[in-house]
């Protein structure tokens, strides 16, 4: 069933009262929303969206799983992920050994999620938040130490977590995150 083109006509505007009706309709709709605005504004930062787990937020490394394969750095389209060399003690032999570790530069990252998807051991995972502010650019270039633990989420400390649910009447409705999770 391929698509078919359909020639349509603009709705006609004829008659003495066409303009009148248009005005009345517009004003009625306006007043309807004046009475019941059905708004869903997020009052950030007093509230913040608790994002779904699948959301591509900040990326964190699980160092236990990483097998130092560099796939993540290779696929990164923004050259945000790069590998650094570290001298580490080999747990088996006890001798120092050169190892490659990924680090991420959030000045460049575009949150495409390729690195997470390509990592052969799921060593990279995303945290479902996105709103972290840095005081300077240098801080955004994470070191390995920062990279291995989830970043602090300051909004979560002050704000109320909410979720948006698609609704037939209002488009979106804002509900407390706990209420959604209970269901």
């Amino acid at each position, binding site marked *: 069933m391929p698509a078919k083109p359909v020639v349509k006509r603009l709705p006609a505007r004829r008659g003495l009262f066409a303009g009148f009706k248009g005005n009345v309709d517009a004003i009625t709709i306006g007043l309807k929303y004046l009475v019941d605005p059905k708004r*869903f504004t997020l009052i950030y930062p007093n509230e913040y969206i608790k994002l779904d787990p699948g959301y591509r937020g900040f990326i964190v490394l699980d160092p236990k799983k990483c097998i130092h394969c560099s796939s993540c750095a290779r696929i990164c389209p923004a050259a945000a992920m790069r590998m650094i060399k570290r001298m580490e003690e080999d747990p088996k032999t006890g001798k120092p050994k050169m190892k490659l570790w990924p680090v991420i530069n959030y000045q460049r990252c575009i949150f495409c999620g390729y690195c997470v998807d390509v990592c052969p051991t799921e060593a990279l995972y995303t945290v479902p938040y996105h709103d972290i502010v840095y005081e300077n650019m240098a801080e955004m270039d994470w070191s390995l130490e920062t990279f291995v633990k989830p970043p602090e989420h300051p909004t979560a400390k002050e704000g109320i977590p909410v979720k948006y649910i698609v609704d037939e009447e209002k488009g979106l409705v804002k509900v407390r995150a706990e209420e959604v999770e209970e269901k």
Partner: protein
Amino acid sequence: MAGIIDLILSIIFYPPIYQLVLVGLTGALVVVIFIIWFERKATARVQRRLGPYHISPRLAGLPQLVADLIRYAFQEVIIPKTVDKELFVLAPIVATVLSILPIAVVPLTSNPAYWPIPMDYSMLVALALTTVSPIFLIVAGWASNNKFSIIGGVREAFVITAYELIAIMSILSASAAVLSFNLVEIVEAQRVWYILLNPIAFLAAFLAVLMATSGFPFEIPESENEVVAGPFTEYSGLLYGLNMGAAYMKRFAFSILMALVFLGGWSPYTPGEGILSGYLIPSLIVVAKATVLMMIFSLTRSIYGRFRLDQALEGAWRLVFPMAVLGFGLALLEAYLGVM
């Protein structure tokens, strides 16, 4: 010494002055702040937003406007090199002052002790004063020496020619009905509010005031998508704030006039003796009516886009002007039949 104090006091208590200061400046400022807040809030509601909020959520963001005022007051006023300096600075100031001048001559009570001027021809004087300020918007546009400003100024000129006649005719129709230019008599003659007797004239006046004060759908001189901010493109800081406020001041002055002429002025209250019952209460009633009128004006922003310049002019001359004429005719008929 005593003589000087007497002089100052007599100046302050010279009726047109205190009316201008009390209702015109203080009242207008309060009302305008409230109206801008209301307009923003109402528009926000229709548009499913919150509007001003973060400065005092409990007062629903009302102090936001005060904050804006303070911001305008302390912002740097940039005067570009290429402008005509004197006119550039003077135009918005004069325009603002002139736009509330009509308030200095309208009666807000029937008690003669508190009339600012003798009332016999007050309607004419008030209407004449409403027509003074727009020229300064054109001056502002011209002095700015900026293409957008000039286009905006020219548009303003077009719009002025369109609305002025309509506004004057439709408001004057009340004079025709009552056979008097005395605003007090016009107010007192309204056993039934004039809006009910002559809705056509009211509608024409309503549209004319929308045009006069750049309300939607006639927000054409400042239409930002072609002419940035119209005559105000080069302005900044306090001068810009004045320009913006001037439109609302003007709307307030017109609304007061319309409240007197169409909405029965201080009725149902009968002003008595003394400052409270003779001046304050009736003037409050008038201001309240004017405020309600302004609230209705501000709803158009959320419902309409703007007309094109030629369409607005065409609408004004082809539709609203005949309406005003019709309203005037109706007023004459009513006068003939002695309805009022």
